[in-house]
C-alpha cells in the first residue's frame, strides 16, 4: 500500500496540481499580454453602449475589473492575489449581468453540459472500443467495414459542421427532433418523468454529434491496439487450446487493449469538452457553450475568464478521477 501511494498516487497528485498550475498561469498571463488595457476597454464599451449605469456602479465595476484581472501592485503580488481569490472561489461578478456572480451562472449551466457530455463520452468510448475490437478480430465482416468507413469519414470534420449538418437534416428537412434548446419555452425544469422525456428528446441530437465525432477515434485506436495483441503468443495459444472466441476476445484481447484506451480517454477530455461547447452553440443548448457564446457577444470578460478557469479545474479533476479508478482496471498498478 505504501508503495502504491508513493509510486502511483503521489505522482498523479503532482500531475493534477501541475495541470491546474499551468492552466491558471496561462489564464493569468493572457490578459497581461493584450496590447489594450482590458479594464478601460471594458468600461468605455459599457458607457458607449449607453447602459443605464450610475457613476457609482461604474466605479464599482472598474474596481471589480481591476480586482478581477488583479491589476493592482507588482506582477508577483498580482499573481499571488489572483491565486488567493481563486482559492476563495471568488471569480467576480458577470459584467453583462452585473452584479450576478460568475460562479452562480456557471453553476446553473453546468448540469446541462455535464449530462450530455458525460453520456456521450461514455457511449462513444464503449461503442468505439467494442466495434474496434470486433472489427480487428473479424476483419472480413462487411457490416463492420461499413461502420469503420463511416466512423473515419466523420472523425476529422469539426464539431461545428457535424452538428450543423445533423441539425439541418434531423430538425429541418426531417423534423423528428426539436430545433433548439433543452426544453420548450414556458416549461419549467423539474425532476418529473414528463420533463425527463422532453429533455431526452432535446439532448439526443447534441449527444449524437459528440458520439459520432468521438466514435471513429476510439474505433481506430482499439483496432490498431488489438491487431497487435491478436498476434501475441498467448492469444495464439488460447486459440489452439480451443477456448471460445467470445472468451478470447473479451478476456485475452480487449482487456489488455482497454488500458491505453482509458489513458487516451483522460488525455482527450479537454478536446471533447471544447467540442461540447461548440455543439451547444449550434443547438442552442443552455449549457456552458451557450453561456460562452452570449459572453462573447456581450464582451463579458469576467464570464469568459470564469468559464476558462472552471473548465481547466473541471478537466483536471476529471483526469485525476480517471487516474484514481485506473488501478481497478490494471492489476499491475494494484499489486506493484
Amino acid at each position, binding site marked *: 500500500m505504501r508503495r502504491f501511494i508513493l509510486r502511483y498516487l503521489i505522482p498523479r497528485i503532482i*500531475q493534477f496540481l501541475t495541470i491546474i498550475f499551468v492552466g491558471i498561469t496561462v489564464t493569468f498571463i493572457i490578459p497581461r499580454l493584450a496590447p489594450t488595457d482590458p479594464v478601460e476597454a471594458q468600461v468605455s464599451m459599457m458607457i458607449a453602449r449607453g447602459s443605464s449605469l450610475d457613476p457609482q456602479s461604474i466605479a464599482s465595476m472598474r474596481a471589480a475589473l481591476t480586482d478581477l484581472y488583479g491589476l493592482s501592485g507588482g506582477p508577483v503580488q498580482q499573481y499571488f492575489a489572483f491565486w488567493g481569490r481563486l482559492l476563495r472561489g471568488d471569480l467576480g461578478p458577470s459584467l453583462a449581468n452585473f452584479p450576478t456572480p460568475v460562479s452562480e451562472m456557471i453553476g446553473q449551466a453546468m448540469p446541462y453540459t455535464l449530462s450530455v457530455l458525460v453520456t456521450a463520452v461514455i457511449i462513444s468510448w464503449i461503442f468505439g472500443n467494442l466495434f474496434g475490437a470486433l472489427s480487428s478480430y473479424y476483419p472480413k465482416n462487411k457490416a463492420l467495414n461499413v461502420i469503420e468507413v463511416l466512423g473515419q469519414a466523420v472523425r476529422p470534420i469539426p464539431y461545428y459542421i457535424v452538428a450543423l449538418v445533423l441539425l439541418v437534416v434531423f430538425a429541418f428537412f426531417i423534423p423528428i427532433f426539436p430545433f433548439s434548446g433543452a426544453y420548450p419555452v414556458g416549461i419549467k425544469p423539474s425532476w418529473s418523468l414528463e420533463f425527463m422525456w422532453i429533455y431526452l428528446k432535446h439532448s439526443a441530437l447534441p449527444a449524437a454529434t459528440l458520439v459520432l465525432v468521438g466514435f471513429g477515434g476510439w474505433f481506430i485506436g482499439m483496432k490498431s491496439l488489438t491487431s497487435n495483441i491478436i498476434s501475441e503468443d498467448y492469444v495464439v495459444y488460447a486459440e489452439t487450446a480451443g477456448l471460445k472466441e467470445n472468451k478470447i476476445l473479451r478476456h485475452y484481447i480487449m482487456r489488455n487493449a482497454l488500458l491505453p484506451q482509458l489513458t487516451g480517454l*483522460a488525455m482527450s477530455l479537454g478536446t471533447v469538452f471544447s467540442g461540447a461547447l461548440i455543439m451547444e452553440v449550434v443547438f442552442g443548448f443552455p449549457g456552458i457553450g451557450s453561456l460562452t457564446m452570449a459572453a462573447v457577444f456581450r464582451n463579458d470578460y469576467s464570464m*469568459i475568464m470564469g468559464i476558462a478557469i472552471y473548465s481547466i479545474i473541471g478537466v483536471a479533476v476529471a483526469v485525476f478521477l480517471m487516474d484514481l479508478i485506473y488501478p481497478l482496471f490494471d492489476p499491475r498498478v494494484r499489486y506493484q
Partner: protein
Amino acid sequence: MFRVLRDLLRYDGRFRFAFILLAAVVVMVLLSFVSPYDPKKSFAVPMDMPPSLEHIFGTNSRGQDLFWWLTFAVRNSLFLGVMTAIISRVIAVLVGLTAGYRGGWLDRVLMSINDSFVVLPLLPILILLGLLLRDRMNLFFLAVILGLFGWPFDARLIRSQVLSLKERSFTRTAVHSGINGFWITINEHLPFVLPIVFATTINNMLWSIGMEVTLSVLGLSDLITPSLGTALYWANQHGALVARVWWWIAAPALVATVLFLGLYLFFASINEYIDPRTRLRLMGG
C-alpha cells in the same frame, strides 16, 4: 519522393481517394489567383441565387459568388494551417528532442508541462485570448497563437522516438567524438524523427483549420478575410437557414468536408506507410 508517391498511389485506396480530394482543393486554391471577383467586394452578382451553371455554388445575400469567394477561403485556411504547423513543429521538435535526449529532471519538468497542455481545454483559453485581441486579430496572428498552443502532443511523440535513438551505438560514437549534445540531436536524431514530424504536420493542420472554423463562428477572428470559418460566420449572421439560402451553409460545409477528409486520409495513409510493419501489410509483402 516520387517512388513513395507511386507506391502509395498503387497500394493504398485511401491514399488515392485523399489524392483526388486534395487535388480538388489545390485546384480551388490555384483558381483563386484568376478569380473574376474581388472577395472583399459585395453586390458584384445578383443576390441569393441557387446553384446554377453560372454560379456553381450559388450566390449569397451579400451579392458574392460563393464558389469564387470560397477559393479565397480555402487558400487562406490552408495558409493558416501551414503557418501554424510550421511554428508548432519547431517548438515540438525542440521540446521533444531536448526532453528525450537530456532526460532526468529536465525531461520530467518538460513532460509535466507538456501533459498539462495536452489535457487543458484550449477552446475557453483561446476564446479569452480572442476576446482581448478582437480588433487586432488577423490570419497571421491567429496562426502564431495557434502555433504556440499546438505542439504538446507531437513533442511527446518525438520524445518517445528519441528515447530509443539515444540507446543506439551511433549516439554513443557521437558522444565519444566530443560532439555537443545539441548538435547530436539536430544532426543525428532529427533525420530519424522527420517522417513523424511530417505526418504530425498534416494532423496539426487539421487541428488548426478546425480551430479557426470554431473561433470564426463565434466571431473571434479577422472576419473580413475569407476563410472556411468566416464563410459560416457570415451565413449565420444573415440567417441563411431561416431565409432558406441553404447553399450558403452547404457550400462551405462541403468544401471544408473535402479538405478535412482529404487531409485526414492523407495523414492516416502516410502514418501507416512510415511504420515498416504496417507498410509491409499494406503492400502485401
